[in-house]
């Protein structure tokens, strides 16, 4: 039975080789398929992303309140969140850390989790059931919970961010817009707010935050040095007493045998230190009740030496590589970061055109010039997008490197440029299978199936795999010509038909070995690339490779004669 089939295939290939019209037809069809599949990328029929989301048994929440918030306020927010979370069947525990970061993890390492300090920050570590005990994937759960939590618990101006464990290397955020320039911090911040507004208009961007302090009041206590000198009160003493009264001071420690630490003695005023309200008067009133003693032993109220002045707390100034910067960050919600970012970039160009002259800087970055004041701003995109672009460029170079290496190898082996070129073109055609494979997979999966970095790795691997198919055919054809004296066309047809079976076997082996990979969240792209790529490569080996090597083998035949 198999012998009969072989003959059929052999006849078909032989007839292709004999007719130049049929050859042209095969070339044309190949080109159309190639162009059609590549066209799927710019039309977003197949979408690209660095790495897809990863299902894990834990996720985190970062809660940030305005700088002047208290522990009690942030506690209220985290309690609200925890109560809602506990209503979920799949959520087991919620560990809340107020005033500091959670136990550091892969994601927190670059998000500054370890540096967190202060009453206005909190992190929550949420444990959910292990994957075999739940149906919903963690990223789908976050997608569902995010609006519920943010709508109900964003009290006191809280910014609540959902942090997932990354499937690849961690980044500050999916989308980071670094805002440079501006004549002052305030201008820069105002501009950053505008960028944030553009992000907010994007339906797939969430957890948007401008990483800059909000303006807040500060009271400056001005000491009257002359009066202090006259009345003989030490300045240092006064400062220390003020600190001890309101903040408290650990005056000394006691070593104890049955304690785990030195026991401190902490002194401060009792609840009478608490101010009535946030006003200048309240501070002045409190200062009147506190007294200091001078050199002569006379007790004088502190208010005598201190005048209270209102001013603004100076905001934290951030810079990157010596340039002042304000970061605007956002996460993507079930979407690749590439598309919303490109959309917001277009939107920025459109929205800001009235007030600014917008020019393209290097890469995707934008430069803005205020039409009236001439103030300059620059927006640089960083975060996962930059990692994605860098990775895709690196992988692209790796891919070209692989092509060049294989070309040289083939030239060394066959000592003929034409054969090496044919092998390379045939291998490259497997990109059709890769793209179509992703398209088909996307049709069948609930979540978007992205073309990822792992797909690219699969594609690079395919080049090698496919050149083996060609090698097996060419080697055998040459052997048939030399040993059995067949003519070039016949030798190619027989060789292709004979090697069709082992090639199909190896193709099927790869397809089956990769089918389990295809279901994996992260490595799915690689699996699908291998399956689609090798299947298409099989067709290429049968119908394209024989035509592509025909001329070269005919030359060998002629040289022999």
């Amino acid at each position, binding site marked *: 039975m198999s012998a009969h089939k072989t003959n059929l295939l052999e006849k078909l290939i032989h007839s292709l080789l004999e007719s130049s019209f049929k050859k042209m037809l095969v070339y044309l069809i190949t080109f159309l398929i190639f162009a059609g599949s590549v066209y799927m990328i710019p039309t977003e029929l197949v979408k690209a992303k660095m790495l897809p989301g990863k299902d894990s048994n834990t996720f985190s929440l970062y809660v940030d309140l305005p700088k002047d918030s208290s522990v009690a306020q942030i506690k209220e927010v985290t309690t609200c969140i*925890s109560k809602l979370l*506990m209503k979920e*069947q799949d959520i087991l*525990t*919620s560990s809340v*850390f107020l005033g500091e970061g959670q*136990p*550091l*993890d*892969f994601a927190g*390492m670059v998000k500054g989790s370890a*540096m967190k300090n202060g*009453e206005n920050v909190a992190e929550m570590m949420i444990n959910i059931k*292990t994957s075999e005990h739940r149906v919903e994937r963690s990223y789908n759960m976050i997608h569902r919970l995010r609006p519920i939590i943010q709508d109900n618990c964003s009290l006191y101006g809280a910014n609540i961010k959902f942090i997932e464990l990354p499937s*690849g*290397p*961690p980044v500050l955020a999916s989308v980071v817009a670094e805002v440079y320039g501006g004549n002052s911090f305030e201008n820069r911040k105002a501009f950053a707010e505008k960028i944030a507004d553009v992000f907010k208009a994007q339906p797939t961007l969430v957890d948007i935050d401008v990483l800059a302090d909000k303006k807040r009041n500060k009271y400056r206590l001005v000491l009257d040095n002359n009066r202090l000198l006259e009345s003989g009160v030490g300045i240092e003493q006064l400062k220390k*007493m003020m600190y001890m009264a309101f903040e408290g*001071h*650990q*005056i*000394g420690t*006691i070593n104890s045998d049955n304690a*785990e630490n030195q026991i401190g*003695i*902490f002194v*401060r005023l009792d609840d*009478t230190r608490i101010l009535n309200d946030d006003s200048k008067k309240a501070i002045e009133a409190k200062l009147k009740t*506190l007294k*200091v*003693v001078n050199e002569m032993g006379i*007790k004088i109220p502190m208010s005598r030496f201190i005048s209270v002045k209102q001013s603004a707390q*100076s905001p934290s*100034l951030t*810079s*990157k*590589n*010596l340039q002042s910067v304000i970061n605007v960050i956002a996460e993507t919600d079930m979407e690749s970061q590439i598309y919303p970012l490109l959309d917001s970039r277009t939107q920025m160009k459109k929205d800001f055109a009235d007030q600014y002259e917008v020019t393209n800087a290097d890469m995707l970055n934008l430069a803005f010039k205020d039409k009236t004041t001439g103030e300059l701003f620059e927006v640089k995109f960083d975060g996962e997008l930059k*990692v994605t672009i860098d990775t895709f460029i*690196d992988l692209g170079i790796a*891919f070209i*490197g*692989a092509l060049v290496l294989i070309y040289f*190898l083939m030239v060394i082996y066959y000592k003929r440029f034409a054969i090496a070129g044919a092998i390379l073109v045939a291998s490259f055609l497997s990109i059709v299978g890769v793209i179509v494979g992703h398209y088909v997979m996307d049709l069948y999966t609930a979540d978007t199936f992205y073309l990822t970095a792992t797909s690219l790795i699969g594609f*690079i*691997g395919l080049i090698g795999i496919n050149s*083996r198919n060609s*090698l097996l055919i060419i080697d055998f054809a040459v052997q048939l010509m030399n040993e059995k004296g067949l003519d070039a066309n016949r030798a190619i047809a027989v060789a292709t038909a004979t090697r069709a*079976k082992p090639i199909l*076997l*190896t193709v099927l*082996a*790869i397809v089956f*070995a*990769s089918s*389990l*990979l295809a279901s994996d969240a992260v*490595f799915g792209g*690689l699996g699908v690339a*291998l399956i689609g790529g090798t299947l298409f490569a099989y067709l290429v080996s049968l119908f394209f490779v024989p035509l592509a090597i025909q001329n070269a083998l005919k030359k060998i035949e002629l040289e022999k004669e």
Partner: protein
Amino acid sequence: MKKDNFNIAGKLASGFIDHPLTALLGVFILVLGYLTLEIIPREENPQIKVAGGVVIVALPGASASEVQKVITDPLEKKIREIKGVENIFSTARDSVGIVQVQYYVGQDKSNADLKLYDIVMKNMDQLPKNAMNPIIKTMDIDIDVPVASIAFYAKDDAISQTELYKKINRLGYEINRINDVAQVALKGARKEQFNVSINASKLKAKKITLGQVAMSLKGLTFQLPNIQGETTSGDVVIFGVDSAIDSVNDVKNILISSFDGRAVYLKDIAEVTKGDDIQNKKRSFIYSKENNLEAKETQQVTMTISKLKGANTVIVNEKIFAYLDSVKNKLETENIGYIITRDDGYTANHAVNELVYHLVVSIAIIAILLVFALGFKEAMIVSITVPMILSLTLFIGFMIGETVNRITLFALLLSLGLLVDAAIIVIENIHRHMHDHSAKDKTLREIAIEATNEIGNPTNVATIAIIMTFVPMFFVGGMMGQFMHPLPVFVPIALLVSLVIAYIFTPYLVNKFLKKVN
């Protein structure tokens, strides 16, 4: 055909086909692979070499823009002198400047740390007056990222938070003794402290100032080392000043001053309690489900545990949790409960086991495919070579210091489709030759060697081609390059091993188990 005419494939095939040790070698490789899988460190993600650090300089009283001018900007400039620094981030706040340094991924950590210390120390003299000593914290993924975290809590508030801290801190020392445990730290711990809350109106009534209170407390808690006195006979007598404060009552009864001829004790002007560190605003809670999805809030102390570099997370965590199990009853009697909130060992093990399971299923699927295509015995021969290839690959990986993680297994899964190919092609060719007319007069042994030899060259070249496609991946930079690093390491190894195994064992097994059909 003479042996001299054989290529590597033919030589290996003819060399091992009758060798008595071939079978033994096969068993040895399989055992080696199994042992490697058991002892090789397991991780979820491959180790990424990241170096970096933070320099914190406090300048009390300075405003943010002052701090930027005199601390962060000059510091940033100096740090830029270091080779290998990718980014410098700085934050200037009121009274403090923070400079974060990020090296290019892949820089040697200890070298990078040293350079950072060096540059900061060298420029100490340029720091402004009043600036406090810079604090340099270098990043260390292995120590900083804990592999396990456990939330401890007091059951029904039966013991105080400080009591809980005392017990858990002790427990921490015990866990630190476990092999390969690097650092044990506590989050949300409440430390014991005497809290003196001074009543301002009473202070006023007794005509005492805060300063006086502070002075008398300071004096009492001032501690001296032991005094070595000498006697006339030259002996040494040791005596020390007792702090005389042990309990709350001792603190309460500290004499502050006298008013109207009557002594004023601390208890007269302040409330003294022995409690926890109230000035510490850090708190931690754990919410769990009571019944009917009702949230139950408990204050907790989280213990975080990290492992030494290169240690097997799975084994370290197993030991930690086994130890916890052994003290569970004791903790129970002390009214302490615990919940494990992170177990990277489980995660790593789970990920690795799942992928190993995928590997096994894939091998089975390929075996079934081959049964239909080549026949039962041939399929079995190919299927036996697969675990051998994987075993040897893992062992080589282990020898060059690789760990088993998601990416490693992903590399193995990727190579799986490729590495059976060599065996399939060899056996298919043997199969084809056996049914060929010209093979009538030859023995099975000769056919096996010749068929292997015939296919040797194109298979070698093709395998080299695939290996070559992975070589440029070595040079992918950044975190992603580090992350993918097991791919260009394991795929080439697996493919090379697959060739050797295909050439040695396929002809051997064919010769042993197949019969020539006429």
